[in-house]
């Protein structure tokens, strides 16, 4: 790129570079190949030979078992979709609205409020007071829908990224609207939100991924299996015999002969599937969001 003719040192660098990156890239994706392959391997070959990179005997038995009685999986999918959808919309909107106010240079208290938000990243009361507040005083255990969304709504980091982007939008645009008599909320909604689309798209995706991958809030606050999020349901399948036993009893297997190992891996594939499928299309937004954040430092 920078020099036309390649010198010896550049050739050496290139060879080493290609080798290192190839190895890193293969290491990054190999576990995905392994669980997909294990999920389509017949149970008895897993028990006999163990998991391997290429299925010794192909079988879709695990998926048939799971989708033969799909109620549990579909319910968990629904819970996670709901959390992701509601959380991303409310979270993005409130984060952006807060960021908008902090980005106004004529707002004399912006530094005080910025400190109010930033301080929470430096010091926290710890998880015990947080848990007791959520359970004993906010009664989140009785409200699984709210419990799995509310605690993650706003992150200070996202707020700062959006704020620095909004600061880079020239004041002249909003000033004109102000002279025309537009209120702050209207300027935010009709001018700043559309203008901030690039950064909002990536932040929205990061928020959505956070909710999609969350198992912790279910782990802390949800006792009723009907409200388990997808990842927590997967966790139960991987770790608790009873969830597996439920699948196999529904599908008419005796406990002794029930398929376990490939069902575990098939569930992992099902829980990750949408992310892998959407990843190629969304990846550029993630990268953009990161580099916007990195410019700010």
């Amino acid at each position, binding site marked *: 790129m920078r020099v036309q003719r390649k010198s010896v040192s550049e050739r050496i660098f290139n060879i080493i570079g290609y080798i290192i990156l190839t190895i890193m890239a*293969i290491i990054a994706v190999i576990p995905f190949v392994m669980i997909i392959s294990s999920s389509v391997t017949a149970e008895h070959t897993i028990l006999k030979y163990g998991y391997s990179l290429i299925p010794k005997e192909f079988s879709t038995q695990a998926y048939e078992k799971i989708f033969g009685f799909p109620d549990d999986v579909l319910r968990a999918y629904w819970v996670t979709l709901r959390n992701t959808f509601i959380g991303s919309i409310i979270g993005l909107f409130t984060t952006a609205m807060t960021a908008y106010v902090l980005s106004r240079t004529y707002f004399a208290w912006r530094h005080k409020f910025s400190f109010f*938000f930033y301080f929470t990243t430096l*010091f926290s009361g710890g998880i015990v007071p947080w848990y*007791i507040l959520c359970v004993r005083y906010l009664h989140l255990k009785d409200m699984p829908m709210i419990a799995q969304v509310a605690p993650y709504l706003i992150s200070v980091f996202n707020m700062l990224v959006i704020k620095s982007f909004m600061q880079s939008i020239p004041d002249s645009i909003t000033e004109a609207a102000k002279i025309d008599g537009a209120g702050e909320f209207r300027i935010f909604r009709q001018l700043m939100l559309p203008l901030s689309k690039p950064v909002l798209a990536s932040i929205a995706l990061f928020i959505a991924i956070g909710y999609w991958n969350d198992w912790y809030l279910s782990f802390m606050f949800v006792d009723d299996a009907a409200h388990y999020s997808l990842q927590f349901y997967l966790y139960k399948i991987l770790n608790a015999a009873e969830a597996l036993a439920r699948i196999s009893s529904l599908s008419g297997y005796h406990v002794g002969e029930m398929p376990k190992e490939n069902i575990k891996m098939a569930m992992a594939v099902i829980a990750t599937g949408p992310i892998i499928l959407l990843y190629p299309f969304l990846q550029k937004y993630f990268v953009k969001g990161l580099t916007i954040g990195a410019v700010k430092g």
Partner: protein
Amino acid sequence: MEQRKRKGFFKKVLEYRQLLLMLLPGVLFFTIFSYLPMVGIGIAFQRFTFDGGLFHSPWVGLDNFKFMFLSGDIWNVTKNTLFYNVLFILVNNFIEILCAIILAEITNKHFKKITQSMMFLPYFISWVVVGAFAYNVLNYESGSFNTLMKALSLQPFDFYNSPKIWILIIVMVCAWKNIGYGTIIYLSAVMGIDGAMYEAASIDGANIFQRIRHITLPCLVPTIVILILLSMGSIFRGDFSMFFQVTGNNAMLYSTTDVIDTFVTRSLISTSEFGMTAAAGLYQSVLCFVIIMIFNTLVKRYNKDYSLF
């Protein structure tokens, strides 16, 4: 005087009423989920009962802290947390900088794009699924590692009975999941370096290694300092999901894999020792706060632009 100042305050509130109203959801959120728990720090000085709550539980002074430090576990988990984080910072930053520099120099666009995408993918996977990966590779009966060992007619290895090896496993898993993210940040810093410097260096006859050593690396110092400073703030925090899911919360492995966060959460859920657990959490928060303050001040003294605040 006081009167006038007060009047000014109310006038400001009136002037800012729209902005303040828009701030309200954010302020409420952090008041509820961050500042109210800070009030709850009181629990660390109480013999807290769930029925009594914060207002009717007996106060016990520093007993919880005494009990915590005397019972001994806290030293080991603190040491583990610190040890892992130092390893993470060193290993991850090294790999990320290496990959970013290579990516910046390599000319084949497709290769660049594909490897970068592949390396970034693990970042988007939940820790539960990573736990499934770990189980797939490591479990004794059917793990693919032991499948391979058997195929080579070697002895199978019982990972879940060998706490020491988990230091290596966890460092590898953490790098595997996070380097894609860090590489992109470092790459954008490398791409931001002025190309004229490289041209001048080439004309002067510098080879690629000299250019990296004398231009790229020095130009990356601000990014490195800021990223390391950011990780310093959580050097006494362990990623609960990672340690919990990757080890499968296996008690055999606590000696080398238990960190403050797993220790606290486990005690919170499985015991009713709220006071002692809150004390451990407060101890962690104070450690983190002190560390970030010290390092931020040091960095600020060295170069103001590199500090966080």
